[in-house]
């Protein structure tokens, strides 16, 4: 049986006249690392804030561990570790005092992991909060989200502000949490941040989920950039008709196209001519991600869209 840890059904959230969520449907399963991607303002943080009962949905329903966040209350939030997207901290307290305070709010859960986690991320616990850099504040956020070994981690843009070395350390922490059975829901506006750890990924745009797939499938959809050089000019129309081939362009004797799926038909068509050189490069997932960003709002995922923005 697959336990559903997070479920959203037709989640709608209006701020006055502005519709921030226009019917979000999601299921996050127990033990998976789920990437939640979208540009800024797409509704990532709004969705997350509904899950934490900061916001109440206008319509639809959200459930975490089978209960609505509002009904679950404090016992539900005790099972969650949350890293806010825009973490603000101030005051004279030191980082250690703040972390111990947050542990006390959890009836002491996590107190003993403050020091080891701080050491791992090179966070100085005796420095006052208000003097900390953005990166150091983010470390405080990471420590408080993970310290009590929560069953569910909700991480909003977790790697922003961390340098590359610490980003890797952070992703290790996410993997360790997954390995001990935790579920991780992490948002980002950059695919590469979640690509390495996430199993499945949802892409949200303008308050709606436009794609939901595992990272491998998403990568297959992304396809390859293929470049063929011929000895003499070729008829470009023939290549346009091939299955899985799109964005065909001919520049003199050089043909470029986007290939999704098997290369068989393309290779056979090319073999009719004298091929001087060829290359096929995996498209960055980032490009695919941009496809979804540029797509008109009501176009469904899966349709072919032009990736050309240059």
């Amino acid at each position, binding site marked *: 049986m697959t336990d559903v840890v997070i479920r959203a059904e037709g989640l709608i959230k209006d701020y006055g006249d502005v519709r921030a969520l226009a019917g979000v449907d999601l299921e996050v399963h127990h033990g998976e690392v789920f990437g939640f991607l979208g540009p800024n303002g797409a509704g990532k943080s709004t969705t997350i804030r509904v899950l934490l009962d900061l916001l109440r949905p206008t319509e639809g329903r959200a459930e975490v561990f089978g209960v609505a966040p509002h009904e679950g209350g404090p016992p539900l*939030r005790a099972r969650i570790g949350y890293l806010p997207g*825009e973490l603000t*901290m101030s005051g004279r307290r030191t980082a250690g005092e703040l972390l111990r305070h947050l542990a006390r709010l959890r009836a002491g859960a996590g107190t003993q992991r403050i020091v080891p986690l701080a050491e791992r991320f090179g966070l100085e616990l005796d420095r006052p909060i208000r003097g900390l850099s953005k990166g150091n504040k983010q470390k405080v956020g990471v420590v408080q989200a993970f310290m009590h070994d929560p069953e569910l981690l909700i991480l909003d843009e977790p790697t922003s502000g961390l340098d590359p070395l610490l980003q890797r350390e952070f992703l290790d922490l996410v993997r360790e949490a997954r390995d001990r059975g935790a579920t991780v829901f992490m948002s980002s506006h950059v695919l590469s941040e979640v690509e390495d750890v996430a199993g499945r990924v949802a892409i949200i745009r303008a308050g709606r989920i436009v794609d939901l797939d595992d990272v491998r499938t998403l990568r297959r959809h992304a396809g390859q950039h293929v470049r063929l050089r011929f000895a003499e000019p070729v008829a470009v129309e023939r290549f346009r008709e091939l299955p899985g081939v799109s964005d065909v362009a001919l520049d003199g004797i050089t043909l470029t196209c986007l290939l999704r799926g098997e290369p068989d038909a393309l290779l056979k068509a090319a073999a009719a001519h004298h091929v001087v050189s060829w290359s096929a490069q995996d498209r960055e997932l980032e490009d695919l991600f941009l496809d979804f960003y540029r797509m008109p709002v009501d176009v469904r995922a899966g349709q072919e869209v032009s990736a050309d923005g240059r």
Partner: protein
Amino acid sequence: MAADLPVLTGVLLEQRRSLMLWAAAVAAVSALYTSFYPAMGGADLQSLIDGLPEELVTVLGYDKIGTPGGYLSSTVYGLLGPVLLLVFAIGAGARLIAGEEEDGTLELELTAPVARSRLFGERLLALWLDVVVLVGVLTITTLVLVVTLGIDVGLSQLLAGSTALLLLVLGFGTLAMAVGAATGRRALGLGVAAGLAVLAFMFDAIGPTVDAGWMNAVSPFSWYMAGDPLINGFDVPGLLLLAAVPLAAAIGGVLAFMRRDLMV
């Protein structure tokens, strides 16, 4: 206590330094004014007041300034004490929920396993404790000087004045916190509470001169001062009216806070 009221403990730890500064300011102002009494008070002051137009004296609240209790009413208890304490309480009240929500620092506490009602309750308790401490400092400073300088004001009159002052300040401080908690807007909490406090003060001052009894009937300042607690001691009806303000504000504030969207 740390284990039982973690939100309260956190607030008190965070603001311990600023509370000490406020306590020092309140003590200094109380001491300064009270120790002027032997120099200024008594018959000399009364004859000076007698020379002023009657309306002006009433508006200034100096009509009983010739007596020791009246002097304290007009100075420490009637003007600078309330002003200082209200500035503190309204500022702290507006900041403790709305201010920290606006600047984002409340987010980690709101998403911790703490019920909203509890978060509100413990932060309110922190505000109330602060005000109790500051009114205590004012009372003790005044009491020490009253005894040392031999000013003729009884302990029970002093305590009556302090109790009423405490409730007055709790009322406006709680109102600032409640409006802030209900709206998430610190400026609104500040503005509503400070505006109403100024209005209450003006109503109390000009009500008698313009012969508008309703002004005094609705002004918490009049509930505080009309019975002259520093001369006549405890004024139970006035105290009950004063006590109703923080309670009503707290209930309204927490109900609204539990219902609305946070961190928008």
